[in-house]
């Protein structure tokens, strides 16, 4: 079942011919239950500037703000929920954004009703690579409480190795693992 917010984003993005993979909470929600209503959509590096420019002409979304690798729109047809366009370069490490995007397309996403959703480990990887990784680590912990197995953290390590970001990701993964080892968190993981 496609969520209303993602369906609304999909309609707009397809109308503009934008190739994308859903990342963030909406992607994790395919596996775990907890999700907020914002939609994070990643597009290819080559398309980023063009996609942002194209969406600015769209009546169903309102441009909110934009940075070098991230642009926020609001989907008017879905109550104004945020739609973030992310440049894949942010996560590509020693490789190109195009390579990271192709990795998502070919090996780290699943098709659901014609929409590609990144796997939980790919989402976790992107979350741990952002500058706000500590807050996103909390979301990873909530995902594990919700039933996504912590074994997938090993897959995050593999993605980091593939893109040469192991040194950054290793300490952040250690933080997540330490938090998951807390007795109060472990008891919730067992009960869920």
């Amino acid at each position, binding site marked *: 079942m496609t969520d209303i917010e993602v369906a609304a984003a999909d309609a707009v993005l397809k109308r503009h011919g934008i190739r994308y993979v859903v990342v963030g909470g909406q992607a994790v929600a395919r596996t775990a239950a907890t999700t*907020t209503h914002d939609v994070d959509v990643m597009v290819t590096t080559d398309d980023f500037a063009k996609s942002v420019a194209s969406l600015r002409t769209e009546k169903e979304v309102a441009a909110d703000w934009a940075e070098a690798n991230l642009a926020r729109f609001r989907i008017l047809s879905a109550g104004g929920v945020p739609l973030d366009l992310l440049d894949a370069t942010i996560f590509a490490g020693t490789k190109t954004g195009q390579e990271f995007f192709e990795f998502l397309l070919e090996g780290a996403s699943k098709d659901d009703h014609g929409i590609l959703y990144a796997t939980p480990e790919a989402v976790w990887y992107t979350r741990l690579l952002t500058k706000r990784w*500590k*807050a996103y680590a*909390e979301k990873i912990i909530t995902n594990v*409480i*919700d039933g996504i197995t912590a074994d997938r953290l090993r897959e995050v390590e593999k993605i980091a190795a593939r893109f040469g970001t192991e040194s950054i990701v290793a300490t952040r993964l250690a933080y997540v693992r330490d938090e998951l080892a807390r007795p109060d968190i472990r008891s919730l993981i067992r009960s869920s």
Partner: protein
Amino acid sequence: MRLEAGLFREPGERALPSEMVVRPNRSRGRPRAEFHPRVRSVEDVELLRRHRVPALLITSEWVTQHGYPVHFQPWLAVPEELAGKVTSDFRILPVKDEDALTAPGIAELVTLLLRFDPLAARVVAKRNRSNLDPHELYRRVRNEGLERAATKVRLQEFAPAIPKTGESLPREELRWIEKNNPATEAPS
């Protein structure tokens, strides 16, 4: 019904419906029968509450109504003593202070959220600040021993008396999380 490391029906009290209770091993000559509740639906929880059994369902709708739009599978909050005795399809959230489950308000919601989604707890506290009693939040956090989780999401901003324990997330990161999930329904 009252909680006594189990459920016991007092003389004169009506029994729970038979399909909602599991009777453990019976002891000969025992004056009262102990029951283990089986909770399969929202209605079962409501029925338990009507029988004064401290049980509370934490739902997405409840959190969303308080300004944090979210979807999650419900949690059934019950006192720790009862947690191992409840049979339920809902996820069980044991709480130390059963009093927090009797008439839950914003402080209780924030405290319960701290257990499994501290980011949501902070946003709910912030978006309902005018209705949030700082002393009540302090009391609930202390009763549940959640000072560390509260510190992580800086709940001292809403209840300054909460002792600071451990590390806090950067303010900018907390602001970002809040900004990412704007309230789409007005806080009640």
